[in-house]
């Protein structure tokens, strides 16, 4: 089962057309294995991207070097997935038959 330890979902907000195009370039970089949850649209529209742990530093460096604003929308993806699993399991506890 694929797990997502250390993956973050970053919210990136392009300020101008140049930044927009730089984020589009990021979308094309298959080697980063980025998963764009909300793709690149227009200036000021947020882009949400899941970044695997092993490329997190490179992606952050890329954004910071280009002065592109970002924040962590989801700090720890696996933590939310574990919680979701727990809730589903709890909901599935068989009810006593009447």
């Amino acid at each position, binding site marked *: 089962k694929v797990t997502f330890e250390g993956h973050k979902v970053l*919210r990136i907000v392009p300020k101008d057309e140049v930044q927009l195009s730089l984020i589009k370039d990021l979308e094309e970089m*298959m080697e980063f294995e980025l998963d*764009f949850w*909300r*793709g690149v*649209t227009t200036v000021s529209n947020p882009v949400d991207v*899941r970044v695997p742990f092993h490329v997190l530093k490179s992606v952050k460096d890329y954004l910071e070097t280009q002065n592109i604003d970002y924040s962590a929308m989801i700090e720890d993806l696996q933590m939310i997935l574990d919680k*979701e699993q727990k809730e*589903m399991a709890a*909901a599935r506890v068989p009810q006593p038959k009447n």
Partner: protein
Amino acid sequence: TDSFDFANYHTLGEIYSFQDMLVAENPNIVSKIVIGQSYEGRPLNVLKFSTGGTNRPAIWIDTGIHSREWVTQASGLWFAKKIVTDYGTDPALTAILSQMDIFLEIATNPDGYAFTHSGNRMWRKTRKPNPGSSCVGVDPNRNWDAGFGEPGASSNPCSETYRGPSAHSESEVKSIVDFVKSHGNIKAFISIHSYSQMLMYPYGYKRTPTNDAAELHKVAQKAISDLTSLYGTKYTYGSIIDTIYQASGNTIDWTYEQGIKYSYTFELRDTGRYGFLLPASQIIPTAQETWLALMSIMDHTSKNPY
């Protein structure tokens, strides 16, 4: 189905059982149609809500074509129950069903959905292998024969928006295509995704507005006003290309080009706090507010025959 837990996410098996149970409980109004098989051989089930007649004009609703968008399948379950509960008590829905049938496909990409439970919660695409690539699956919302292969989809099998080798290459898509064509009397087609809180109409693959853009916009405006009235959830609306981005080969561009005027696609909650991991506590509010918008579109469709 009265004791079904609509406030939690469910496995594909539970969804299939729910569908069978709903049919068994309401044989006068619900039946199950299998329109095809997924790549891995799972049935593509569609619930048909009908009060009689043959080949009545119909409304199509699908949820879960992108498997990881769990709130959509969960909302589909809630819609199914809502239809049987409200029929006979809600005058608007009763009037719609007196003239039209409703088709609801809850798990439109069952292989992907099963895989989100067993292998990768973040899986979006179908599960068919791509010859010559280690990457699996096609984006079933880029696989339709409407601007297929044009900008707004990827030709790379490793991309999340991979369009596939040819239009309708995915059985999950082809089965709907065949069903829509053979039915021939579908008047509204609503394909439901998450997240971003949007309601959109064609086109996605080109900038040219549709001939019905003004009416589609007005209907969207009313639908969103109704949706927002419940919990204040803010939606944007417009054509796909103006509201999100260029997306070629998408579902509703194809349905519109087949002559289904009222072709819409939703992006349900949220705007980016949880993304595809919307907490289960938000399923029912999401479904409730979406239902108001669906009712608005269905009502308009039934009152404006074409």
